[in-house]
């Protein structure tokens, strides 16, 4: 018997001895949808649906410290949240944070992308460097800006004082009205490159011909930008806005590292407020606040998708 023959005759015997391999061999050629859908479905159920359903369940119950059990309270937590001025304040702070950061990152991102959209020598390196802030962990970014905005040693405070827009006695992060802008600086520094990358990808994918046609039609650079570039980038911008807005609305890390929600509750955003309540052991109310964040996001995101006809 040749070597090949012996290998052929021993293969089924090997499989019979190895149940896992036999099972896999059967599953990997299966026509049934179950083995293919199972891994993704299991992940979604375990990490998406279960926490959501559990949060909803939590928001309808209350933890009793004496009986050490949950009791059903219906919509009580929701009613409490909707009449909680601190929740409304946190929602306001979150909205301000989202809108301002989004506007600045969008404008800066588009501007920088337009500047970097060249094929000259060195621009590739610049485009690569743009991604650096994205790989810094947000907590490290927060710490970095905390140091730079420090009233004593902060480099940004130093230049702020030099320009007359800051006072050493009143550092930005300690200012009730402007602390949120200090946190925004960290976000803008870290996430503007994301917008740049998305816009660069969009700009590079634009067809050249319409721009040449517009140049012949008589459009100047400004008219080409407003009448062609901006509308043609609309779809890309809509997707970028959606992704960033959702991310911004869930802001937690910079606030945690830089201000702890303070001074007072000046920078207390919704997720941070929910986290704070969670640490006090009021899991049900924390879950309710988190669900409010989710509901606001779903409503706003869907409105945006409908309004701007975003297609994925």
């Amino acid at each position, binding site marked *: 018997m040749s070597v090949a023959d012996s290998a052929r005759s021993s293969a089924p015997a090997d499989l019979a001895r190895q149940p896992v391999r036999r099972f896999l061999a059967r599953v990997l050629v299966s026509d049934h949808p179950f083995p293919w859908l199972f891994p993704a479905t299991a992940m979604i159920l375990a990490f998406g649906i279960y926490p959501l359903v559990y949060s909803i369940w939590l928001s309808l119950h209350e933890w009793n410290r004496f009986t050490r059990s949950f009791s059903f309270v219906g919509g009580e937590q929701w009613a409490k949240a909707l009449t909680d001025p601190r929740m409304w304040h946190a929602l306001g702070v979150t909205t301000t944070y989202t809108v301002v950061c989004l506007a600045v990152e969008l404008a800066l991102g588009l501007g920088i992308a337009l500047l970097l959209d060249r094929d000259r020598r060195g621009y590739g390196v610049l485009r690569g460097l743009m991604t650096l802030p994205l790989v810094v962990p947000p907590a490290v970014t927060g710490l970095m800006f905390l140091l730079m905005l420090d009233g004593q040693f902060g480099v940004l405070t130093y230049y702020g004082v030099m320009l007359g827009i800051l006072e050493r006695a009143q550092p930005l992060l300690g200012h009730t009205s402007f602390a949120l802008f200090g946190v925004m600086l960290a976000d803008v520094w870290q996430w503007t490159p994301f917008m740049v990358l998305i816009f660069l990808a969009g700009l590079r994918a634009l*067809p050249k*011909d*319409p721009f*040449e*046609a517009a*140049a*012949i*039609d*008589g459009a100047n650079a400004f008219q080409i930008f407003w*009448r062609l570039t901006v509308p043609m980038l609309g779809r890309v911008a809509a997707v970028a806005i959606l992704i960033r807005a959702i991310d911004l609305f869930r802001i937690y890390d910079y606030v945690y590292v830089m201000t702890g929600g303070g001074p007072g509750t000046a920078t207390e955003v919704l997720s941070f407020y929910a986290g704070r309540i969670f640490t006090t052991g009021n899991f049900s109310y924390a879950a309710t606040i988190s669900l409010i964040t989710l509901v606001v996001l779903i409503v706003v995101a869907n409105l945006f998708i409908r309004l701007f006809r975003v297609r994925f």
Partner: protein
Amino acid sequence: MREEIAVASVALRNIVKRFGVHPVLHGINLEIPDGAFVVLLGPSGCGKSTLLRMIAGLEEISGGDVLIGGEVVNGRRPRDRNIAMVFQNYSLYAHMSVFENMAFSMRLRHCAKDEIERKVRWAASILGMESYLGRYPRQLSGGQRQRVAMGRALVRDPEVFLFDEPLSNLDAQLRVAMRTEIKALHQRLGTTSIYVTHDQIEAMTMADQIVVMRDGKVEQLGAPMDIYERPANIFVASFVGAPAMNLLRGRIEGDDGGPVFAAEGGGRWPLPREVAARRGQSVVYGIRPEDLALSSEAESTEATISLLETTGPELHIYAQAGGAAICGIIRERLDAKPGQVIRLRPQIDRIHLFDAATGGAL
């Protein structure tokens, strides 16, 4: 409605184009009179589109001058050259309606609303697009999009129309239809037009003058039939005409009956009594397929049929004659099969001779 149309001549003086250190156009000289329809014809990569883009101002000029209406326009921006261009991929503004696409240039010039309306409707009526003005480019077929691109060019009132392979994205039927439309439009407006194509049928059917280009140089300039009947060299002879001209390498030999062409593979082909080549000279013998006829005469050339193609009115015969592949087109019925031996006779006054060394016509 009749519109006043401005026309201008175009002249190219020693135009050179280099991409980095690589020259792609080597000193092109061309005079295009007012109102002419000139076709730049050549294979891909010969520099015809680059030349057109230089006239449009979309490509920098490395050397020489472009003159429109007698004025050097080298330094002028595309929008200041009073030209209109129709691109291969239509180049429509996808987010604008057909009306807005056509009105775009006039809006930029801050034209009055009623003038824009009148002009767009005039262009749309010429192109049969009146009922599509509210649609978006994505809702149109390829032919309709090309019409919008032409409409956009029309409303500009240009002195010169530039067409960069405008029909190459259309199917065969539509291409023929649009070809006729463009030609009819030119006859109606009389605007100087420069049209780039690699399709020699387009060139032959549309042009007043054809400029045949190869490797950044003009190979021949002339009226379509001049180019077809008197090609300046082997390249033009083989590029213009489909099926291409039969070109056989060999030498001139003489006998008592006059000069004869002896092909390298062994076939012998007749020549007129007077030829511009000496006995023994290496030449390329050219004969167009339609200038070959079936014959029963002894002095005609023997050929073995390898393939027969019927187009309806014509029969294309592909055959081997003395080791060389040749093609003949006949309009009569022939009951023959591949492998069968036939005799072919060229029309003696339609024979072309080229110098084998230089490739130039003799």
